[in-house]
């Protein structure tokens, strides 16, 4: 059955980070029309192309946090690629050259967002109608050599079609999964990041604009094939746009679950954008009687870094550095800002009981800054899988052709001086995602976090480690092997 799709929009919440991801994993290896470079025949003159190239090169030349460019001959890169840029006959061609240039840096948070994506949606005009970005309510992860459904939204067409966690994606719109996964073989040295790209790329293929249909085939746990027609529906969450970032849909979910002899508060949000804050505070206040909190940052690709300071303040009684940003011009500390008053002016104390943070390979940027900082301070215990290692503070700047250049302007280390870029946040308790767990409806990482809260919450609450913090060694929970 043919699918009926208008031109796909990127999964906007992740478009930025996909664009960022292009650089370190080798530019144009994207398996299809992902959100990196929009297809489009727009022609560009040599003068225009050179103006854009020179602007981007110069901006990075002047702002990259390391004046030695980590050993890269940045001027040599310009000399090599400027003529290629000038010979570009289309906007797409020029973007490819820019991405090639950015990839030479080998850092995250360098990318180009096409103007048509950056400006695709005005959040004030979102009504959930046809033509707007949609979703089928499925989250995907790469596990081993498969693309698996890791989460099924409660009300999407995927859920109504009967898709279950653990089902494997066999094909999307006729493109077989093995073709989507092929990129993993090309860049084994960046496997974690490549897996995120593949999963997000597959999600982008599944979802179109509201009203679009997609034909996808899934294989269940018993081996049966399920060809399904999925309809994209309005994105859940609050549309928000900040600066040159594309419009995103921020979504926070919170629930109280049993833990130990009491309860644990589980809060999950998909992006670090300000609209989540009122809901976060409401959830915090409603569940602070529980033994502990779980902040589930799996799949959260980041957002506004400053939010890490304010959100950590719900769990920190003192100002403590979450990490250090080093720019060319100086050093800044990201610090926790203890919350002593609610938005409606009621006095409040930060929560001092057990705090668990769950991350995975799709937890990036601000999620990593937050998790790494609280882990290093001894305030939180981190569960799950190593995070994406994409943790450089970046800025979004318009290029002369109105595309958006994302460029890192600072390096970042956690309070112990450990660089998170490329390394990621290493969980204290590593809990790999497995298909068996997904098929049986088991969330092993959450279970491990709740188990810890159940025990830790009965005794003395963990203290903030102030002086001479020593890294906690990853341990093995519930008999699991660490990779």
């Amino acid at each position, binding site marked *: 059955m043919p699918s009926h799709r208008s031109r796909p929009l990127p999964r906007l919440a992740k478009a930025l980070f996909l664009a960022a991801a292009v650089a370190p994993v080798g530019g144009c290896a994207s398996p299809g029309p992902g959100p990196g470079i929009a297809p489009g025949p727009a022609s560009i003159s040599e003068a225009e192309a050179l103006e854009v190239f020179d602007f981007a090169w110069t901006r990075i030349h002047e702002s990259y946090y390391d004046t030695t460019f980590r050993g890269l001959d940045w001027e040599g890169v310009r000399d090599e690629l400027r003529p290629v840029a000038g010979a570009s006959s289309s906007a797409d061609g020029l973007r490819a050259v820019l991405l090639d240039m950015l990839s030479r840096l080998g850092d995250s948070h360098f990318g180009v967002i096409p103007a048509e994506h950056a400006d695709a949606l005005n959040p004030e005009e979102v009504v959930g109608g046809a033509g707007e970005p949609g979703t089928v309510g499925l989250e995907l992860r790469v596990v081993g050599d498969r693309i698996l459904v890791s989460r099924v939204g409660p009300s999407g067409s995927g859920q109504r079609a009967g898709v279950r966690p653990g089902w494997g994606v066999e094909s999307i719109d006729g493109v077989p999964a093995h073709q989507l996964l092929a990129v993993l073989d090309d860049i084994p040295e960046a496997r974690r990041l490549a897996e995120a790209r593949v999963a997000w790329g597959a999600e982008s293929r599944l979802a179109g604009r509201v009203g679009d249909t997609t034909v996808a085939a899934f294989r269940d746990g018993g081996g049966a094939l399920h060809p399904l027609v999925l309809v994209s529906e309005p994105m859940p969450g609050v549309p928000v746009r900040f600066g040159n970032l594309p419009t995103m849909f921020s979504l926070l979910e919170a629930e109280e679950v049993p833990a130990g002899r009491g309860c644990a508060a589980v809060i999950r949000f998909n992006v670090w954008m300000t609209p989540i804050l009122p809901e976060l505070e409401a959830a915090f206040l409603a569940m602070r009687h529980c033994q502990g909190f779980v902040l589930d940052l799996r799949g959260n690709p*980041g957002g*506004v*870094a400053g939010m890490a300071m*304010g959100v950590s303040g719900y769990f920190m009684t003192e100002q403590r550095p979450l990490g250090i940003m080093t*720019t060319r011009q100086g050093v800044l500390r990201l610090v926790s800002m203890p919350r002593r008053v609610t938005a409606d002016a009621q006095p409040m104390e930060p929560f001092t009981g057990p705090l668990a943070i769950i991350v995975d390979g799709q937890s990036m940027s601000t999620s990593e800054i937050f998790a790494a900082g609280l882990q290093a301070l001894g305030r939180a215990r981190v569960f799950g899988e190593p995070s994406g290692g994409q943790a450089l*503070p970046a800025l979004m700047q318009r290029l002369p052709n109105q595309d958006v250049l994302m460029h890192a302007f600072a390096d970042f280390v956690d309070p112990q001086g450990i660089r998170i870029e490329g390394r990621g946040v290493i969980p204290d308790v590593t809990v790999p995602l497995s298909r068996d767990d997904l098929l049986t409806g088991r969330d092993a990482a959450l279970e491990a976090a709740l188990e810890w809260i159940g025990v830790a919450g009965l005794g003395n609450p963990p203290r903030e480690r102030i002086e001479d913090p020593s890294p906690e060694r990853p341990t093995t929970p519930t008999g699991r092997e660490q990779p």
Partner: protein
Amino acid sequence: MKWPMTLAPAAAVLAAACLLTAAPVAAQDPLPSAREIIERYVEAMGGREAVLGHSSSRSTGTFSMPAAGISGTLLAQSAAPNLTVLRVEIPGLGTSLTGFDGEVGWSVDPNLGARLLEGNELAALREGSSQLAAVRDPSLFQERETVELAEMGGEACYKVRMLWRSGRETFDCFSPETGLLVGSISRQSTPMGEIDVVTLMERYSETGGVLAPTRIRQQMLGQEQVMTLDSIEYDVVEPSVFDLPEVIRTLIRDRQGG
């Protein structure tokens, strides 16, 4: 400090040397004293009486970080002797408020929450909120000293070192041609540490008998923030606008143990 994004985030200091470089001063042209420079500045604005004759001011305009595509609205209100409140609203980020009510310096930020300012951050706000700061009144300073003829924002200016009563050191730069303030350099205290800030005053316009800049560009950490004032009104501010927000009152009660 207003948040860029990390994305972050972000801010880096435009090295002051880039904008403020020493220029050779002819031996036969001794530098005017700081007192002379500042007196001329006050006269250029319209005179001390005109500046201090207004009991309050209300400015509206826009706030932007052009390179990051961030823009919003601003409302700045102040009143004698030392009251101030600044409101900045940015789509996608929310509303930031900063104020001083004569005793308490405070901030309410959508990301950082509500807080009482302390230390150098409070001292800077307290001193900057004084109506007398507009005329660089000697009572606010330990020392004022002309340093050199320099250049700032492409304009020649007399660089004057200002040592405030609190011990803060800032540099103002005044145009030899017009007498007006071209810009200033300061080191601002923030929860994230100290940040060097270069401020450029541009597009002076007369309202209510006072010549004031209507575009203020602040450069820090490689980023530029631009405040453009669309209107300046005098003597129209209601005193109640300086009342402490309830969240700040709660923090004060909490601090006092009640």
